């Protein structure tokens, strides 16, 4: 499969489609005669999908297409909406600003890495959008960034999902306790401390909000009134209280999940998705009553004490209780087979095809505030599509083509061995072989523990 000529051609192709442009690139194409899994509107057999300027403009049989448009024959193949990963850390160069228990002002969107090969690997698994999250070192971490996998574009800002909701990482339990309590000798050292830190931060946000409101009022009378000190940390907390940001909270235990719900109630905050939420099945009715959402692993737990207890039925129980639930990867490897992860809910819980696929499409879209744009195949939505050789919930299905905004970003038929866009001339060996960066929640925090013992 390795042919250097092919590499070059591919690199050229990529570069030509990548010139730095202010607007995200989009394309036109038509997919013919596939089985379309719309997620929201059932399954359509032998159907065409017309894409113009990156949007789905037609859905039906024997559609007329403009002359010369790129055509993909999907006879015998399945088309589903591009998969959405609600929890990942790929494509960013910094995950944790772990030097303070509250860092609501930092934004991982400032550290997008357009060269991260993980983006291409995710595309190869049909994933078109991921939620690049701040890590879980701090009780209140930084703001996350929903990105589209436009691999090949060099401008980092062009990866940002236009119009996506603002999201922020919160973290309960052992990670913030360890990093700050043990690592730095500051609050929080216990679960009680985590609650205290979060309450204090909200309180600061309220005080800040009032200060600025008073200033704005004063300014009307006296245009020379001095402004209070600008503080993006507190401003962000105020924005959460004002419902402008969806909280994405790293959590495991039922008790701490209920604790946060109480805190949010006290501050009038309504928008939250719990991440991991391994004991979510214990408090599913409470989550549903609050309107909280949940993003879980299919079948992964017991990797540390606070996540000792969970079940592979978690996603099903949450779904059956009316909680908007998604299955996420939190990993540059797992992201490539989220369709397998979703399929596990049919073995553990008997979810229907549509319910299982919703876990990796429309549900994460709802959690990220992008469900009007992606997550299902409907006219008017973004042409983010994944074509599979078989039904994506079958273990035999293989992703064939992945499309973002009408542009083919992955094609199994043209998949060169070396897809790097950035090559370090001093690299001593091909490090891209088999190497996977640690993409976990706790990246960039190791130095916080270095002085222990």
């Amino acid at each position, binding site marked *: 499969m390795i042919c250097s000529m092919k590499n070059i051609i591919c690199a050229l192709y990529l570069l030509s489609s990548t010139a730095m442009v202010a607007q995200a690139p989009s394309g036109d194409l038509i997919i013919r005669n596939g089985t379309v899994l719309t997620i929201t509107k059932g399954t359509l057999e032998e159907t065409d999908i017309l894409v113009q300027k990156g949007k789905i403009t037609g859905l039906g049989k024997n559609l007329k297409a403009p002359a010369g448009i790129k055509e993909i024959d999907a006879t015998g193949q399945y088309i589903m909406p591009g998969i959405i990963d609600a929890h990942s850390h790929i494509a960013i160069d910094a995950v944790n600003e772990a030097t303070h228990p509250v860092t609501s002002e930092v934004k991982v969107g400032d550290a997008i890495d357009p060269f991260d090969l993980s983006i291409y690997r995710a595309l190869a698994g049909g994933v078109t959008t991921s939620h690049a999250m701040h890590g879980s070192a701090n009780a209140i971490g930084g703001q996350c960034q929903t990105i589209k996998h436009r691999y090949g574009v060099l401008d980092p800002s062009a990866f940002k999902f236009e119009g996506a909701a603002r999201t922020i990482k919160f973290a309960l339990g052992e990670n913030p306790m360890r990093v700050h309590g043990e690592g730095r000798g500051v609050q929080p050292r216990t679960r009680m401390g985590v609650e205290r830190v979060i309450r204090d931060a909200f309180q600061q946000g309220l005080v800040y909000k009032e200060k600025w409101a008073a200033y704005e009022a004063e300014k009307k009378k006296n245009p020379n009134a001095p402004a209070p000190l600008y503080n993006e940390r507190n401003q962000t907390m105020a924005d959460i209280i004002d419902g402008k940001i969806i909280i994405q909270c790293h959590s495991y235990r039922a008790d701490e999940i209920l604790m946060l719900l109480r805190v949010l109630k006290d501050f009038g905050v309504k928008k939250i998705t719990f991440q991991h939420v391994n004991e979510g099945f214990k408090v599913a009715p409470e989550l549903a009553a609050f309107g909280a959402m949940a993003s879980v692993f299919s079948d992964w737990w017991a990797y540390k004490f606070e996540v000792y207890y969970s079940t592979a039925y978690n996603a099903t129980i949450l779904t059956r209780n009316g909680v908007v639930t998604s299955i996420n990867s939190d990993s540059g490897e797992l992201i490539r087979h989220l369709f397998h992860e979703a399929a596990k809910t049919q073995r553990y819980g008997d979810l229907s095809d549509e319910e299982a696929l919703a876990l990796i499409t429309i549900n994460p879209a709802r959690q990220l505030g992008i469900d009007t744009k992606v997550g299902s195949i409907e006219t008017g939505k973004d042409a983010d599509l994944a074509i599979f050789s078989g039904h994506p919930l079958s273990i035999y299905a293989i992703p064939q083509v992945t499309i973002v905004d009408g542009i083919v970003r992955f094609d199994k038929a043209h998949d060169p061995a070396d897809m790097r866009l950035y090559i370090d001339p001093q690299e001593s060996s091909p490090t891209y072989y088999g190497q996977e960066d640690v993409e976990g929640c706790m990246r960039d925090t190791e*130095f916080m523990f270095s002085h222990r013992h």
Partner: protein
Amino acid sequence: MHTGKVLLRSYLSLSYTHHSLTTNSFSKLCLHHFKPFCSMRKIFLLPVFILFLTGLASAQPIDDDLPQITGCLALVNARVVASPGKAPVVSTVVMRDGLITQLGPNLKIPADAYRIAADSLYVYPAFIDAFCSIGINEPENGDGQGNRGSQRPTFDADGNPPLEEAGITPYKSVRATFDAKEKSIADWRAQGFAIAHVVPKGKMLPGKGSIVVLSGKEADQMLWKEDVSMFAQWTGAGGGYPSTVIGIMAKWRELYHNALQSVAHQSSYDNATLISRPKYNQAHEALMPVVKKEMPVYFRAPKVKDISRAMSLQKDLGMRMIITDAEEAWYLKDQFKLGSIPLVLSLDLPEDKSEKKAQAEAKAKGPEGPGQDGPGQPGPKAVKDSLGAEVKAEAKAEAKEKDNDSTKTIALDTVTFDPEKEAFEKKRAESLKAYQEQAGVLAKDGIAFSFGTMSVKTGDFSKNISTMIENGLPTETALKALTTQPASLLGIEKYCGTVEVGKMANVIVSTKPLFEKDAAIKYMVVEGNLYAYEVKEKKKVAAKKTESTSSGPLDGIWDYVVEVPGETQEGELEFITIDGELTGTLTSEDNTTGNDRTGKHRHRWKNSHVYI
């Protein structure tokens, strides 16, 4: 990359009489002295070690000041290239009291002039360094590691470390750490530089840059225009906030907004009544000229992502920004074409690490080559220094490579043909070429740029310029980027950058046209002060070549680890023997996550646990 480099360079560029020591005793001595230094970070031991060596030193005069008998100097009948692109014209240059006072053929030379018969020599405007840390002598104690360890960290009311620890010192000036006797001043002057835009050392906002004349005995004579720029970079505070690029970005936004508010508050306080006194904040105060767009920000952004991020910050906040020390600007040339953000290119180039090169070096060394008892396998290579007076032999022993498992695997792989490996080598070669072609490609696209020496070793300067010229950089553009371009960037084009009457008496006197093979600097005149250099004959050079390839017992790249309770810092210590003179550099790692240059750093954590 920031810590200790200058510290050691200044100490380590020392001479010793090689033959007066036996190989064994010397290496023992070094190990003995270096281990404690490394593990305990007792820096005071280093000077002791240096003193010991300098005691044996045979001084090597390169550019001793000639006593100035008269304030008038005449370069008689030289071939003068008055500005970039001009053809050489035979003229006499008369300089008095630091200025060029007369220029032309058949001049009446003043009677008190010190005359130099320059009829076989070329005169050029001396170089202006757009971005560097020449002359900064800073024993670094806050070296990006924050306050980890047994001590409890100190925080302000918001739980953030104090400004100094956070690396937010925009109020600092070059003067505080500028040392007129610092070795780099003479070194860079010998390479043709007369003026330098110097910035202090530090973390995210180290302080303000100043324009320095590279001649004089004390700082007051040399510091010409102080606090002309704000220096910023993507270097985090290590253990303290901000430690990552995302933290630095957030901090920038906060500082900028508050500086803007401070400007408004101050103006209200001055012009209206019943306004409370503005609370003084050193950082906000220092950033006021930046938010008023009176002072440009020189953002150090070597890698493409560094540049993208700096540009997006500029877009958000609107400061005047200059991208400096750029190594990968061609990725974003469409943005630079717009011309709104000036560019200072790095003069550093990546090393050729290909196998072919390694094999060629190994062959050049020969089977009976020295250095078998050294830490590695030195592959010495004679390099002609086209500008400087000397030929330097560069011996790079890559002890690290030898221990590296991956290199071993590669060695085995070469037995059989590996198409994957071939493809990799090809891509790497193309990538290397892209760096070498950067200046040429940008020039072709009409993008104006200056050069800065911040990241290049003195010894690599002319070699790298030559490489760039071989890869498409026109010599005229090269000269521009070293003279008129930085002059207008720094707003000093009225005073320097060309050889004209009324300009500062800053000229290079070269044996051949600049950038030509075998060209060497014979004299430097900096603000009228004359520096003479010994120009060696080519024959001598050839004879010396064999001798100079002998490598010292310490030659090679040494890994070091500094361990203090609670943290370790690793880096490389490189020793090179050149004509029996031991020199070297210490390179440490930048601790900021999210920077390109931390790739190494991240890999080190590869085997750590994944926390979820």
